[in-house]
């Protein structure tokens, strides 16, 4: 994979993180393709090291662009208390690797994430971490997220809620 493409995709993911951290959720929606699949399976502790330790039958998120749009619109109401007082959050994205996707204009992109959140004047911060597997697609010269699977590393999430997008 050439360095230029890697750099372009990395910058795209950093830009996405910037929009989310600054609660520009409507602008974030523009980065999602219409046929988006957005999901977060559940991590479990299994008794066989080699068996899958992910459960897909029940997930934390199972979203389409439409349902994410509803979630975003809700955050712009005056009574979405989860974002009021406003959340202060950082999405750290690293370990980005790019591989060709199944279609010509698509790439399979893996990244690690660390999410930190600070609410009100609470000195304790919440965090989530894990890995993401995206399919990014170039549509009319612009990058779009065609699918995202978020793999949390915790079986019991140490956040009050998943009010954030990852």
């Amino acid at each position, binding site marked *: 994979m050439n360095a230029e493409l890697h750099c372009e995709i990395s910058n795209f993911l950093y830009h996405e993180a910037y929009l989310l951290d600054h609660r520009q959720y409507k602008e974030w929606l523009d980065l999602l393709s219409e046929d988006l699949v957005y999901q977060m399976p559940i991590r479990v502790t299994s008794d066989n090291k080699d068996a899958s330790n992910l*459960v897909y*039958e*029940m*997930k*934390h998120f199972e979203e389409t662009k439409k349902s994410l749009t509803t*979630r975003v619109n809700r955050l712009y109401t005056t009574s*979405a208390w989860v974002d009021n007082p406003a959340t202060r959050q950082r999405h750290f994205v690293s370990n980005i690797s790019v591989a060709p996707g199944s279609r010509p204009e698509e790439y399979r992109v893996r990244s690690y994430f660390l999410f930190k959140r600070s609410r009100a004047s609470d000195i304790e911060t919440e965090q989530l971490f894990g890995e993401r597997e995206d399919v990014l697609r170039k549509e009319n010269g612009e990058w779009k997220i065609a699918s995202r699977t978020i793999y949390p590393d915790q*079986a019991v999430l140490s956040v009050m809620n998943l009010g954030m997008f990852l």
Partner: protein
Amino acid sequence: MPQWVVTDPDIYQLEVEKVFSCTWQFLAHESELKEAGSYVTRWIVNDPVLLVRTNSGELKAFLNSCTHRGVHLCTADFGKKKTFTCPYHGWSFNLEGELIGIVAGDKVYGEEMDKSEWGLRPIPRLESYRGMIFANLDRNAMPLEEYLGGMKWYFDILLGRSDGGMEVRGIPQRWVATANWKAVQENFAADPYHVQTTHRSTVEMGISPSDPLYASYGHAIVLEHGHGINVATSKTGRSIYPFQATPELMWPMFERNLSPEQYDLLSRTTVFVGGVFPNLSFVSPVHGTEGHLHNYLNFRVWRPLGPDKVEVWCWFMIDKAAPEDYKEAAYRGYIGSFGSSGTLEMDDTENWSRIVQASKGIMSRDKELNYNNVANYLMGSGKFEPDENFPGPGTAYPTTYVDFISRGLHEYWFELISKDLLDAGEEAK
């Protein structure tokens, strides 16, 4: 009810010893343990529990701790096994909890080592109702069915309306919230009053009606042993979505499985929301944000991790007999509304944490400052009489904006907390 009681560490310790040690604790739904050898690991506060289906199909629950030196025996969340082997010295136990293998047993232990004495310690009581498996650490506890009492009638509607009952989809979601277990139990069991404010975003989104009393229509039913349920209908007493927006083809099945009174109540109800004391809550709503409405059943256990923390265990359940596409749509409806990423749920979590944050101070516990040390549970007192015509068991008040269920919950809590003190007082007389 003094506000400091919410988060006081000494009270919390009392609760662990006096409430959680002798009440029925929900462990799992039987659909989570389909085959022989299936197991799940759960907790009763700090007691790890291993629940297994044995080869004969029976359910058994043990303390999930090796009888040799106490190692946490099985750390997996669920799975299938024939034996459980301890990583420390290799003792192994079968599905019946019997010790079947001691590494170098004959060589290191004398002949007096009797394996049958060192089997896994059974959880004293294990009973189930309509597929809901409960355990109790008190061997002298009243039977589960007696404990559930009038709640059984409502469980019959929720869990028994369909052929084959309900099934759990996948596994419970789990996360940790800053909250006190009593406050969250109350939130589900006894508090439709919060709906109009906490969940106002749904009104702003055009999903819920704008009438500020919309969540008040229906009945709040106080049951024995601190249980309670709210049956929400509408201003007319009938849900606009008959049978909770389930497919019409299921209705004759409901009629077959329910009594005429239960069937009629189900036809009129939009939301059932309630709790089994101390820390099992449930909600069976009608939900949808995309123009289509669905019903599901969500059970949750608030496992206390301390006075101001709960580990939330959240199960999605659906009628086994529902059409597959309905099940899928209801599941999506659940993800969007309740559970770890549910939009309704996340606004609730905000208030739960604010309660504990503001309940640790001096003014909330100083009796000299008592104008401010009591939380308010007066709603509906002296204003509403029970509705004698309500068909179900319990004391049914004709609106859900009342505090009677909360008061029942706290009364039973107080009875358990103060039991020994009262007994000691009796003896002293």
